């Protein structure tokens, strides 16, 4: 039998966009037996008005099935390189063991944030009404989990050879300087979904992340740490997705309703300042902790924030958004931030899980070149004094505890915007209690949501309140040493993990295992 042949034109191939739409927003639905407002109970209380989720422009078009394939392949490649690094004892190819302290600070301070980001994006992915936004957040949640895992492997490797990395999750919840990144992220996670995604995807991932990632990755490359460099490549292909998500989120919110503009501006002000204060730790990594330096903090700030961020805010001005409040203070601080921070950690090095040291003469020369208006006049004399004391066998350390800022939780060592010789103190009274701040930026943040920040878990306060001792400790027992007990509570190996680098266990092992000097020439 002859079938009639009806020549049919094959359907036109779907464009990537249409194809993606069918596989994402095409899978969403309006709930019928439950009110949508009950299903998505958290996407209205912040005051953000969304009229049309269909106006969401997908910043990237990656479907879940393709996502698994890509990420699986990335993992294979990354672990192959990490394995090779381990088999070849790559950790001994870094410049010297001082470099490892950068890693310690990153791995104990930032890696747990990857896990927090995973949790945060999982939360956001649950709470947005728009399907595409939910899927983008869901993918990022999985990315962040992958990054956290990858870094856990790095920690496990370096922990075999160097001190201070034996229990990062335990430390993250307790140690004074780690409360800076921890409280930053918990502030974001305890906000609503729109504030979280503005804070993390836009203010952090988009505006500030280059300041964290670039120096860290380039620093690793300069100092011979190829495992970290490889991790960087593997993560960067995810980060670009995260950054475009940040841009799209902010555009989308701003375009949906003019009432959203002042809310977003307030968040940008807040999260710029929160993020900038967090980057204080990065400034001292760049200027003091990398034995071979990439660029100075001031240069990085100029390039990544003043130039690139400036161009971004020029464009955002069209939406009625202005530069974040106190950006000019950050620019005033760029010539002193790292010096003030490193000096503080030098003071309290015995209570930290990484080492500190006085910069070598050659490094001081570099610092003087990079900071011609401040280093020789303000900071060099102090380092020289400490070096002399150390040579006399009296390495300085500060036996008291620093006062912390109620908001950023950084010790209050920052100086007045217009006077780098005067510590900046701000305070306010709320419900008959006094609260202290490092800056106008942090004070304003407190002033906008005092109910939130009075609950801050400030490590120094907690120590004084007796909450940072192991169970069963008797502070009234004769010979009780509070500081030693606190370090036990932190889970530190007292005498190994922190303190002066020269003569430390790390430095001695380094020389013994590699035959190289503890401080590279």
């Amino acid at each position, binding site marked *: 039998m002859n079938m009639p042949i009806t020549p049919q034109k094959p359907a036109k*191939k779907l*464009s*990537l*966009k249409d194809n993606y739409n069918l596989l994402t927003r095409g899978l969403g639905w309006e709930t019928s037996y439950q009110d949508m407002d009950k299903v998505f109970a958290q996407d209205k209380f912040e005051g953000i008005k969304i009229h049309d989720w269909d106006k969401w*422009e997908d910043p*990237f*078009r990656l479907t879940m099935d393709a996502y698994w*394939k*890509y990420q699986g*392949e*990335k993992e294979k*490649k*990354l672990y192959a390189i990490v394995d090779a690094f381990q088999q070849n004892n790559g950790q001994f190819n870094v410049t010297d063991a001082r470099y490892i302290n950068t890693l310690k600070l990153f791995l104990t301070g930032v890696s747990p944030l990857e896990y927090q980001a995973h949790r945060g994006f999982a939360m956001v992915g649950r709470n947005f009404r728009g399907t595409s936004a939910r899927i983008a957040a869901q993918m990022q949640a999985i990315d962040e989990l992958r990054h956290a895992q990858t870094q856990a492997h790095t920690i496990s490797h370096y922990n075999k050879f160097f001190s201070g990395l034996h229990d990062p999750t335990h430390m993250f919840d307790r140690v004074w300087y780690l409360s800076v990144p921890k409280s930053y992220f918990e502030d974001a996670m305890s906000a609503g979904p729109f504030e979280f995604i503005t804070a993390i995807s836009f203010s952090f991932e988009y505006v500030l992340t280059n300041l964290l990632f670039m120096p860290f990755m380039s620093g690793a490359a300069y100092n011979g740490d190829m495992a970290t460099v490889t991790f960087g*490549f*593997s993560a*960067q*292909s995810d*980060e*670009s997705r995260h*950054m*475009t998500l940040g*841009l799209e989120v902010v*555009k989308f919110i701003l*375009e949906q309703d*003019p009432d959203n503009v002042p809310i977003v501006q307030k968040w940008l002000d807040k999260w710029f300042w929160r993020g900038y204060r967090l980057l204080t730790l990065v400034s001292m990594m760049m200027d003091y902790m990398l034995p071979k330096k990439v660029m100075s903090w001031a240069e990085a700030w100029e390039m990544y924030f003043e*130039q*690139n961020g*400036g*161009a*971004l805010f*020029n*464009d*955002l*001005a*069209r*939406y*009625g958004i202005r530069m974040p409040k106190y950006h000019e203070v950050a620019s005033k601080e760029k010539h002193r931030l790292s010096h003030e921070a490193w000096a503080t950690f030098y003071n309290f090095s015995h209570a930290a899980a990484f080492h500190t040291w006085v910069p070598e003469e050659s490094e001081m020369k570099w610092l003087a070149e990079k900071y011609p208006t401040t280093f020789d006049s303000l900071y060099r004399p102090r380092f020289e004094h400490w070096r002399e004391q150390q040579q006399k066998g009296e390495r300085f350390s500060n036996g008291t505890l620093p006062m912390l800022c109620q908001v950023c939780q950084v010790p209050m060592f920052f100086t007045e915007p217009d006077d780098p010789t005067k510590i900046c103190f701000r305070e306010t009274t709320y419900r008959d209690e006094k609260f202290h701040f490092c800056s106008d930026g942090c004070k304003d943040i407190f002033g906008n949501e005092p109910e939130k920040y009075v609950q801050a878990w400030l490590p120094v306060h907690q120590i004084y309140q007796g909450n940072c001792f192991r169970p069963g400790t008797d502070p009234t027992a004769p010979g009780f040493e509070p500081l030693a007990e606190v370090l036990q509570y932190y889970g530190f190996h007292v005498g190994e993990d922190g303190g002066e680098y020269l003569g430390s266990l790390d430095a001695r092992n380094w020389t013994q295992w590699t035959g190289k000097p503890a401080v590279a020439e």
Partner: protein
Amino acid sequence: MGYELTIEPLGQTVTVDDEQTILDACLRAGIWLPHACCHGLCATCKVQVVDGDIEHGEASPFALMDFERDEKKTLACCATLQSDVTIEADIDEEPDAEIIKVRDFEGTVSRIEDLTPTIKGIWIRLDEAIHFQAGQYVNVSIGEHGFSRPFSLANPPATGTEIELNVRIVPGGVGTAWLHNELHVGDRVKVAGPYGRFFVRKSAQSPSLFMAGGSGLSSPRSMILDLLEAGSDQPITLVYGQRVKAELYYHDEFTALSQQYPNFHYVPVLSSEAEGSDWTGFRGFVHDAAKAHFGNDFRGHKAYLCGPPLMIDACITTLMQGRLFERDIYQEKFLSAADAQQVRSPLFRKI
């Protein structure tokens, strides 16, 4: 030398130099491809090679996996061509875009008129009609100088045998000086085109707003004449600015059109007209006039901008503050190497 690159789903073809990347060639041809890092690390610019051979260049093995290379994916920011190539990229399809092959045309100068002290209208009768979309441009060969200059077509497509160019003399410019001083009626001229992706989104069926200034009137004029001739019943508004009345070329034509077509609104504006002249229209800049005319609310429009960069910039800001955003704003963009080096945020794609 170089090869031909066809970009799907547009079907548009561009020429790519030997060392030039796919991304660079596309951006220069006005075709926006998604991109971010521009050096092979982030994979934002990944495209599918449908046909032909490419070299992957410096693409990172994490950004472009081995299995993707097997599937003939590549990163546009690093890839160079080894043959004529067709790619499929993540580009929004434009239902109103016509794909018209670029061709070479020859014609004879039929008329030259002074439109203003600095702008000449040049009419060229082509040997064969050119098919184009209102808003597109042609490259005009500058005599024996061996180079060409782009000019938007000021006539509507319906009059395709005789094309009209409005040429402002650029101080020190060889090309415009030649067109102004050495070209005469009866001379033979070579043009190539049509180029560009500036066209009216007719299928949107929404009111359109044209903002023009300086010598940027050509495309909007072609587009408006085309819309009116086609019998469009959507509101059409032209906000058109010059410094002084003497420069406001085609003022009488637009005034007449606004009387003839009830859906066409004409808002002329002068920025430096002498106080006390008989000018009764708006004084100020194009964006000010538009803001006043629309009461700072541009929602629901499609806006088409043409004019000097400062005017474009001010207009975009005004439109956005009046709640009209990137997806509804169109402009012709000529990208030069200098533009590519500018520090720009990736917040906006097209504007």
